[in-house]
């Protein structure tokens, strides 16, 4: 819903940064992050709005960041591709493929060295799995039995290039296995299934059994970057999309909850309204916030702090 709002607002040309929407891919973010504690540490990639929000990232600061405002979560220096909320240990997203994966491994190393039981999670896409750094990360995490969960969100495409033009025929999760990492393939389109498999994974990792690799199958509805559909490009067809849309993870979850009487239609509508209000508030906050001043350009190149001696 947050992102549907972005779709609506983007043409106003006030969100002036590359924006990769997760619409269609919500279940992986929610299913995994629902299992995490606040002190668990998450790193994302270019398509990480959903991860930020699912980990409990501040919505207002998020929206303000998209608008390039001083009140944004990265103070306007990051934009949609550089989200952070350290209060909930959402530790950052970047658009260099694979670039944050070893950082999550490093966070897990910190946890191990500091004798804590928090874990780290790295989200990344199917194309990122082609970067050598993923293997280097898996090898090290496996060697040191680090508390880190690798989550590969396989949406079948890298921009407009299908998986078949980039990888041989075999499942991606086998890459994890090759590094002696427990690895699983799951339907990433079903929030409950993701929740279940992630729950087991998180428990196992937290208990000190080393890393786990999850490949979650999912699908992106909109264009690679931006608010529109892109079927006219011809690299994928609308039939494919409609098949996935039918299985809409949110609709499915809603229906399941209604059926199981966990949620009534009224409650659902109430929730929807409340969320809508929150979104409207966040948009107003973002729009009303000031832009960073010129001075801000020069700050934060270096940290002035040092370790107390």
């Amino acid at each position, binding site marked *: 819903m947050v992102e549907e709002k972005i779709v609506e607002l983007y043409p106003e040309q006030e969100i002036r940064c590359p924006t990769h929407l997760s619409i269609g891919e919500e279940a992986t973010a929610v299913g995994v992050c629902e299992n995490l504690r606040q002190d668990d540490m998450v790193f994302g990639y270019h398509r990480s709005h959903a991860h930020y929000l699912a980990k409990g990232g501040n919505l207002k600061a998020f929206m303000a960041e998209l608008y*390039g405002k001083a009140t944004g979560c990265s103070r306007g220096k990051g934009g949609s591709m550089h989200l952070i909320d350290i209060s909930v240990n959402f530790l950052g997203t970047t658009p260099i493929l694979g670039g944050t994966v070893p950082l999550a491994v490093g966070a897990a190393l910190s946890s191990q060295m500091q004798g804590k039981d928090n874990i780290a999670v790295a989200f990344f896409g199917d194309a990122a799995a082609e970067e050598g750094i993923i293997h280097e990360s898996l090898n090290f995490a496996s060697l040191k039995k680090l508390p880190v969960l690798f989550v590969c969100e396989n949406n079948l495409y890298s921009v407009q*290039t299908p998986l078949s033009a980039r990888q041989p025929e075999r499942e991606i999760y086998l890459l994890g296995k090759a590094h002696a990492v427990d690895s699983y393939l799951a339907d990433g389109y079903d929030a409950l299934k993701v929740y279940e498999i992630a729950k087991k994974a998180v428990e196992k990792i937290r208990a000190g059994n080393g890393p786990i690799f999850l490949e979650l199958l999912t699908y992106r509805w909109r264009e690679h970057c931006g608010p529109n559909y892109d079927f006219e490009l*011809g690299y994928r067809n609308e039939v494919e999309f409609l098949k996935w849309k039918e299985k809409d993870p949110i609709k499915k979850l809603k229906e399941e909850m209604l059926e199981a009487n966990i949620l009534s239609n009224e409650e659902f509508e109430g929730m929807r309204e409340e969320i809508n209000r929150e979104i409207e508030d966040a948009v107003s906050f973002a729009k009303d916030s000031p832009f960073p001043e010129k001075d801000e350009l020069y700050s934060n190149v270096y940290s002035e702090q040092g370790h107390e001696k």
Partner: protein
Amino acid sequence: MKSNRIISYMEAVREGIDLCLEKYPSVFIIGPGVPDPKGVFGTTLNLVDKYGPGRVLDMPLSENGITGVCIGAALTGMRPIMVHQRMDFSLLAIDELINNAAKWHYMFGGWCEVPLVIRLIIGRGWGQGAQHSQNLQALYAHIPGLKVVMPTTPYDVKGLLISSIEDNNPIIFIEHRWLYNMCEHVPEAMYRVPIGKSKIVREGEDITIASTSYMTIESIKASRIIENLGISPEIVDIRTIKPLDTNLIIKSVKKTGRLLVIDSGWKSGGIAGEVIASVVEEAFDSFKSKPQRITLPDIPTPTSHSLTRHYYPTYVDIANKIATMAGMGTEKAELRKILKSKKYDTPSDIPHLSFTGPF
């Protein structure tokens, strides 16, 4: 039959590739999205239909590995062109570029050659941010064995690309995204622009401006303003930054006595400083005033357009600097007036109002 066909920088790149694919069976092009429906901002559009997926290749996201693959192919008879949609991504491949491509010919005593063109596109605008807009030309220009070209005009980009593809050395070929929509007359035939030669794009008397890539456009804009005040700048488009050709710049400085170097990259350790050092070493006595440079500040790119406005220098900054260097006194007030009205005439995150991306 002289044609006056006008095409864009983007189309000129595409035409250069097209002609080489047609002429040389050993040429192929590879990169993420090369055969896709957007064709790397249009520069590879539909080439796959003409030459097939065997010569117009998509690739896995494995920058270092595929660079190595291209080097291996180049060593064994092929002439690969590899393209990165952002220069930033080439950092993942810098090991193969610097450790292998740049040195192979030398460290094996000349037995082998690496005819390889790496197209790198500099991103700018629309909140690209710190990792999608880097101007890393100085890194490559430091490396012996690489040649680094930065064409500014549609005519040059086609001619230099063809020269690069025909060259037997690894070439870092840098295209600035904000040049893509620029149009001018470009001949349809195959022609070459020599690597390693700078070019005078405006003759003048009072100050030498040496600039790279898109900053040459800003320099030309600045000179149009500044000439109203009776100052006549000479503009040298550097074009090849490795090996750096300082001949024209030195000749020009001997005439004008002043040098302003403008590069699209960071200040410290950048191209502009190298140009200044090289010229000062040779022509120290020709200077009437100290040489200066305009570059990005030593700061990662911020995302918010309210900050990029102050981050990227424009023709306004250039005009101001020229006025100062030419020692203008009272006229400066007048310049201020002209400039003031222009400073924020377009947003800082798009090249002009009609430009709608993609970035």
